[in-house]
């Protein structure tokens, strides 16, 4: 047994940091730990190459509070997620998503779950680091050469010099009494290599580089610029779309609108009955109904009224005077972008060729969208016929009423 203050470094000036003793295996370590515990020391620790079962009670270590930290962090995450979702979508900016409740538990559970897990994991990871006093690159006990065995086959107990009961001679006697394999003093040489230089340098460079984008972001927020923004990701910002008065970059001939391909026909070019389908014959709008195919009838007028009330009346009104529900509401909002619908019974439209009314229904005009896709050919003509009837009825004289019925109007 050697109980020497074996200072290999020969620096007597370094202050005494503690005393360590080596033991022969985990069993001896546990026994010794029990005695150190019972002697009332508080600033000491056991060091072994692997976790030793039962060392905690032998050292008198109280059960860790880590599980409670994790539980607390988990509940914090749960609360944050709940309040965040409730506040953002339920209160601050209510936004209805596919008819679901603004704060509906089923939709919010994934976030609550994930944030609970995330904060629990943070609690476990950082909590265990902090409770274990990590990361730390230097401890005085590392100055002992004998102590290096601890990562291989050495079992040690080290009592720190700042323990209230620290008395080198008493401790050495205690260790000797336990049957130690060797006792050694260790000194604090205070060479706290804070962080290995290369790691420090690389870290600093990365940190400074990381500030660059941040600096640009800050600059952009507090200044104006006429330059287009930077495109780190092109997304769909650059497309070969048609731009007015510009040559197309996509087609070699620079034309954006393509000429008709040889040997093909547009649908209308194959039309066998342009009067019926286009309301236009040889480039001239027709002034007559296509009676050969669709003879005017009471049945057609009733159908026209039905379609008119469905598709046209919401804007133009049931009487065609442009005072429909949508138009009334839109005018009352007073938005500058609203173009009021035409009065279908005024003279301008009464004089319009029927072909033009037909084309308006089919292709739309100004702000009125096209109704071709919704209303089929026969119904379009039925609506035109009904509009003509509206025009007549709104500008009628007493002569238009059959003589037999004139009495009723008075």
């Amino acid at each position: 047994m050697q109980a020497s203050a074996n200072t290999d470094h020969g620096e007597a000036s370094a202050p005494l940091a503690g005393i360590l003793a080596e033991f022969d295996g985990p069993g001896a370590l546990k026994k010794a730990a029990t005695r150190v515990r019972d002697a009332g020391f508080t600033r000491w620790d056991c060091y072994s190459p692997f976790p030793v079962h039962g060392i905690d009670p032998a050292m008198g270590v109280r059960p860790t509070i880590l599980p409670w930290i994790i539980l607390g962090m988990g509940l914090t995450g749960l609360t944050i997620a709940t309040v965040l979702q409730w506040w953002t979508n339920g209160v601050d900016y209510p936004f209805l998503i596919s008819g679901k409740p603004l704060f509906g538990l089923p939709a919010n559970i994934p976030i609550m779950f994930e944030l609970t897990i995330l904060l629990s994991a943070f609690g476990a990871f950082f909590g265990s680091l902090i409770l274990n006093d990590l990361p730390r690159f230097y401890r005085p006990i590392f100055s002992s050469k004998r102590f290096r065995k601890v990562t291989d086959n050495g079992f040690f107990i080290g009592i720190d010099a700042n323990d209230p009961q620290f008395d080198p001679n008493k401790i050495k006697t205690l260790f000797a009494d336990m049957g130690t394999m060797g006792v050694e003093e260790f000194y604090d040489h205070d060479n706290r290599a804070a962080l290995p230089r290369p790691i420090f340098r690389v870290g600093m460079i990365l940190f400074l580089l990381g500030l660059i984008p941040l600096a640009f972001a800050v600059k952009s927020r507090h200044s104006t610029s006429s330059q287009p923004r930077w495109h780190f990701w092109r997304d769909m910002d650059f497309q070969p779309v048609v731009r007015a008065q510009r040559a197309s970059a996509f087609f070699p001939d620079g034309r954006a609108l393509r000429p008709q391909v040889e040997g093909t026909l547009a649908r209308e070019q194959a039309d066998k009955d342009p009067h019926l389908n286009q309301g236009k014959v040889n480039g001239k709008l027709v002034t007559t109904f296509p009676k050969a195919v669709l003879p005017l009838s009471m049945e057609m007028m009733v159908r026209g009224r039905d379609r008119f009330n469905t598709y046209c009346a919401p804007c133009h009104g049931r009487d065609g005077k442009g005072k429909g529900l949508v138009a009334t509401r839109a005018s009352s909002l007073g938005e500058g972008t609203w173009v009021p619908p035409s009065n279908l019974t005024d003279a301008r439209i009464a004089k319009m060729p029927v072909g033009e009314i037909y084309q308006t229904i089919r292709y739309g005009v100004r702000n009125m969208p096209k109704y071709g896709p919704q209303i089929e050919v026969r119904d379009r003509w039925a609506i035109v016929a009904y509009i003509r009837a509206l025009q007549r009825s709104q500008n009628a004289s007493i002569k238009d009423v059959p003589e037999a019925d004139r009495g009723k109007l008075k």
Partner: protein
Amino acid sequence: MNHPNPEVVLNDDRHLGPLGPKILRTMGGLGLLLLIVGLILGITGTEGGMSRFLFAYTTGFAFILSIALGAMFFVLVNHLTRAGWCASSRRIAEITLGTMPILAVLFLPILVSVLMGYGGLFSWADHGIASKDHLIHLKAGYLNPVFFAIRWVIYFAIWIQLSKYYLGNSLRQDDSGDPALTSRMQKWSALSTLLFALTLTFASFDLLMSLDPHWFSTIFGVYYFAGSVIAFQAFGILAMVLLQRKGKLEKSVSIEHFHDWGKLLFAFVFFWGYIAYSQFMLIWYANIPEETGWFHVRITGSWGGVALILVFAHFVIPFAGLMSRHAKRNLASLSFWAMWMLIMHCIDLYWVVMPNQGGHGHGSESIPGVHFQAVDLLAILGLFSLFVAGVAYVGRHCSLVAIKEPRLAESLAFENV
């Protein structure tokens, strides 16, 4: 580290002995009695008649099958991971798994009802119903009595083969002590796990999901799997606690092993919640009528009450209750939670199966309520009693500890840090 000598296990009381025939007689007799009374009630007295009895029988069968399948998972996953901790308690799972041939016999009533074209259990089995219902008609390529029978023959062939292989080799090792048997079982565990996953998934589709032939959920197999593992962990814990109370396995199974069984139970309580919620949330969010119908009948009215019971009593409460290390290391609290989970798993299956009864399945106008009847309890308890008798029958002669398992010493020395 001082490993305890595996020889201590030799001195342990590790045979059922006279207890085996006793359990076999009482539980077997009780089970048969309950089932017969249930059957008579089903035919004569009960509302719903034979159909009701068969639905209750299906609930009970799904329950005991899930315990055996959970045992299969326990055996396979521990071979797959070459786990050492469970070597002294794995035989319990192997014996439970050994009941597969008995389960095949108990499945016959369901199979016969399908082959007879009886529509009171599986509506798709009745040709009259199937020909009128367009959706069932379209699914008839899969949902027809003959193919159903073929599939179940395949499932049971695989399950019985796996149970014979893993129980048989483990018992052979008791005699020979040949470690090569363990290596061989480990080697085959990968393929076996694959077969296990596929058969369990399709069996759950056939047995439970097709009770409502309109509905489908691709996660349903995982849902049944999660419940199965819960059921077996609870069953195994209770079995070992009761055996220890009879003075058996006292040296072989320590509190460290119970702690780990409890951890698995705890983990799968959460897994079940996760899977059950995943199934619900996607269907709730998409809100497509063909998918929501199944949940609609189960979360409205009194079935909705059962659904809430499941949320809290199958997930939230046991999750909190089993979380602590102390709860798992105290046999009284651990067996309380095991009992609790076994009952909750049964209620879970009841909630899955029973709303389909009486044609109240998918698409019906009226929402049925929970109409609990005596026949339900009789069928479920009867089947469970027969299952317990079956476990005692399989385990009546063999050692309850794999006595020459190469990792036995490691298992006995195992400590939770």
